[in-house]
């Protein structure tokens, strides 16, 4: 019981960071969400200023999608760094089948240039997407990721958003959800599994 007590304290100290256990008995470290969500055909502008259709232009690769904003000091950079590290653990051919897409929840501040600068800190291959508020929220909604921004967006405001990362298969159907804080090793393991399944 003492051990259980200590574990409870540790869990308490770790706050929500650990998100308890991910994936129950599923085949992945993350939660299996096969077919729960589909990438919508929404038109974005990418971090190079080019048009990007979320469904069409993500097709053909396993695509990790995260919604956040660049003024997010903690959750967003940590998640992007973890995804970049996870990618670095894959072998070359696996890396070619994987991409990461960051959709800004804060399109009023995050323009393509800012997204490009921000993402280059993690991995220059990461794609950053922006569109208007309406399409942003509609996309978030379709992916089951909550976003809420303050009414007053004059000063240094923050955007609340879901901390999960969704993995889509090359056809744009959801496969795995990783909650915030999933270790890069676990993400990489899942990527290997899922890419292996598809091979």
């Amino acid at each position, binding site marked *: 019981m003492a051990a259980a007590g200590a574990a409870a304290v540790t869990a308490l*100290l*770790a*706050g*929500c*960071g650990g998100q308890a256990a991910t994936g129950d008995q599923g085949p992945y470290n993350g939660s299996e969400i096969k077919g729960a969500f589909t990438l919508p055909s929404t038109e974005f502008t990418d971090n190079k200023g080019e048009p990007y259709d979320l469904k069409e232009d993500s097709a053909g690769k396993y695509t990790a999608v995260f919604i956040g904003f*660049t*003024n997010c*000091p*903690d*959750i967003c*950079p*940590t998640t*992007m*760094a*973890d995804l*970049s*590290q996870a990618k*670095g*653990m894959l*072998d070359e051919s696996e890396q070619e089948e994987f991409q990461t897409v960051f959709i800004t929840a804060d399109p009023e501040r995050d323009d393509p240039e*800012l997204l490009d*600068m*921000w993402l*280059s*800190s*993690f*991995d*220059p*291959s990461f794609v950053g997407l922006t569109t208007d508020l309406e399409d942003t929220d509609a996309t978030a909604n379709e992916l089951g*990721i*909550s*976003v*809420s921004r303050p009414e007053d967006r004059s000063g*240094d405001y*923050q955007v*609340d*958003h*879901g*901390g999960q990362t969704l993995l889509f298969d090359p056809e744009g159907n959801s496969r795995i959800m990783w909650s*915030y*804080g999933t*270790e*890069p*090793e676990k993400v*990489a393991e899942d990527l*290997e599994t899922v890419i292996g399944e598809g091979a």
Partner: protein
Amino acid sequence: MAVRGATRGGRAGKARRPVAGRRVLTLSCAAGALALAAVTGCAAQEPQIETSDATVRVPLTPDVTSAYVTIENTGGADDTLIGADTAAADEVQMHENVQKDDGTTGMEERDEIPVKAGETVSFEPGKLHLMLMDPDELKAGETVALELRFEKSGTVEVNAEVEDVMGEGAKGGDMESMDDMDHGDMDH
């Protein structure tokens, strides 16, 4: 681009590993400098704050970055962190990540963070962070002096090392140098 100098040790992902030789002890006893020996003498009724693993992230935008530190109260009385400051930013706020009912993750500002006698409070990603507003241009390897203000212990200065969010070696796409240790299936 210049090759970076001596790289720091392999970094397994989280900014949490202990950093040898970077532990900063700050003692609140009157006898400050010589205090290690005096701990038993004065700690019984007073909080005693020790800090370690202080880091500041290289700012990814000009607007904001985060800092992390582990605070331990080894004394005999509770204390409360009531604020933080640094010359390297306009303002420092204490933020806690909270999971909201609508499924979002957001940050809430905290004015007070209790550090009870015998307890350790860790500012770490996903949990608590110091938010530096409008930080200076900080480069990896630099040191930033953070001032932590405690209700009883007063101001405790901590030297935080500026760290790249990706750790060493990963920035700018030179992915080859990333350490992929612990990864068994690289069989070519």
